[in-house]
């Protein structure tokens, strides 16, 4: 009647529950679920790698467009990073303001409702954002694009000629910005509301206005959350597919011009557009580009998580 292995078990657990047959089955099931998940993640990398190998070994003539794999993926990677970067630049200031508004400025009574509204933005399926972008936002943006071309045409981003349909990089990035805003603002809100009360009340007691209090306590306290939130948003924007697929009119070129009809595609949008009609090596090529996307988002997310965990330790 000796207790089953008591090594490494906390005294309470060793004294309390007795390990029986059911216990072993159940704990093994739980461990199995955990291992399954690790296996799944490893499987994602492994199977993508296996299926993209044929494209790596193939000669350029066999690949779509007759270009080498690197030449095929590079413009797509450029478009992916460009769209996501602009989206983050637009979304982050707005997201920080939204987070501040909900955590420090809005009346207490409406905070729950406002939080729900912002979360709703995250719940809307990306296909709906795509339809909204091409049928509503795109046409509405045309006059703005023309104005940008006329007044700011000397900047490389707005060289034009302005698109007549609104299916441009700027509009696509704008939609991406709306889509990632809730994630960025959720991360910021979480940390902003944890700013020590002592600091905030101390600042107010010294006569600071509310904005000065925010600037001197909340923002410095939440600085790393703004950075990590932006990177999580960046990761999301890099991999977002449908909105870009529908909105962007692509031509495979590399350009910083954000308002014209000819735009670089993104990796994800290119897969969604070409995959259904592809076969043979073209499929392997697309999967290879997917692997590159996986690697880019992985690095971005790991960096974001590293920043978050360091901030938790402090």
């Amino acid at each position: 009647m000796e207790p089953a292995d008591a090594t490494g078990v906390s005294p309470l657990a060793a004294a309390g529950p007795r390990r029986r047959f059911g216990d072993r089955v159940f704990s093994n099931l739980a461990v199995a679920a955990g291992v399954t998940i690790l296996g799944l993640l490893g499987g994602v990398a492994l199977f993508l790698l296996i299926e993209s190998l044929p494209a790596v070994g193939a000669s350029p003539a066999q690949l779509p467009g007759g270009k080498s794999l690197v030449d095929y993926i590079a413009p797509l990677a450029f478009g992916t990073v460009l769209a996501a970067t602009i989206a983050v630049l637009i979304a982050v200031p707005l997201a920080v303001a939204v987070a501040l508004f909900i955590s420090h400025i809005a009346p207490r009574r409406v905070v729950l409702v406002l939080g729900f509204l912002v979360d709703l933005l995250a719940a809307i399926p990306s296909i709906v954002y795509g339809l909204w972008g091409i049928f509503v936002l795109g046409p509405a943006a045309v006059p703005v694009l023309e104005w940008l071309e006329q007044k700011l045409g000397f900047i490389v981003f707005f060289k034009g000629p302005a698109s007549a349909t609104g299916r441009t990089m700027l509009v696509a990035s704008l939609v991406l910005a709306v889509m990632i805003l809730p994630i960025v603002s959720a991360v910021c809100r979480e940390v902003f509301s944890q700013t020590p009360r002592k600091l905030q009340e101390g600042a107010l007691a010294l006569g600071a206005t509310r904005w000065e209090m925010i600037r001197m306590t909340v923002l410095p306290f939440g600085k790393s959350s703004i950075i990590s939130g932006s990177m999580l948003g960046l990761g999301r924007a890099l991999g977002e597919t449908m909105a870009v697929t529908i909105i962007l009119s692509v031509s495979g070129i590399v350009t910083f011009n954000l308002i014209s009809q000819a735009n670089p595609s993104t990796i994800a949008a290119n897969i969604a557009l070409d995959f259904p009609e592809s076969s043979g090596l073209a499929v392997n090529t697309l999967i290879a580009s997917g692997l590159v996307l996986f690697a880019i988002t992985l690095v971005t997310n790991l960096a974001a998580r590293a920043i978050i965990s360091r901030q938790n330790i402090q």
Partner: protein
Amino acid sequence: MQTSVDIPPLLAAPAGGSLWRRKLVNRVMTGLVVLAFVLALIPLFSLLYQVVSRGLPGLDWEFLTGTPRGVVGGGGAAHAIVGTVVITAVTSIISVPIGIMAAIYLTEYGGKGRLRRWLTFFVDVMTGIPSIVAGLFAFALFAIFLGPGIRLGLMGSVALSVLMIPIVIRSSEEVLKIVPNHLREASYALGTPKWRTIVKVVLPTAFAGLVTGVMIAVARIVGETAPLLVTTGIVDSINTNPFQGRMQNLAVYAYSEYRTPGVMKQASYDRAWAAALTLIAIVMILNLVARLVYRRYRTEIR
């Protein structure tokens, strides 16, 4: 009297300028923050308004019960509604047990072990996998064994599981964590084995939270398009068997109606909007019911 409070010079100096100026800055910045918030919500309201006003005309009996009629277009989305239900159900059957068991591992068995730390870390990584990559993974997995032309409802469900499992784990872990320890200890004190304690004490206490988490996870994947585009394909007829033949959910239906409209272009677009409206309605209802379930049935934990 009140307005003439003296500002300590130390604070007044770095903050810059007179009290009047500082108050103005305060006003302006507050105004900007409020403006940014309003700006952020404009897309939400515009989108909801457009989806409802453009989607309602197409949302009729034919849309809900018919299937597409060849190249002419027309018909309805019954096949996509069936597809949505089947794909989502199979995804949940795969994801919910794995997700909840993994959460049980993390909160009840993991302790501070290495597997636990790895798992926590990789679940975070998993939440960042782009949906299209999850789709490619499922395709690669099945293509290796069944050939490159394969398209199945099950493949779509595997792809969506990659997206759903981490969401289920995160939410389940949260609610299992807040089950108070004294409940577990009371159960142990009565001589109950650990697994019976989990099944009879921990899970029932957390039940409302678990249901809420699962519903929100379902809402997250029910409108996915990209991973299904590369795994379940596009199809025009009703298919209820996830193990055979192509399948389509409402999101893919909306996309294909937009992408390859029939002869009557506008009618196709109307159906795309109707599908979008149906999707948003499903997502909203899931979110609202999830919140209500939590409010109504959660166990009061003191």
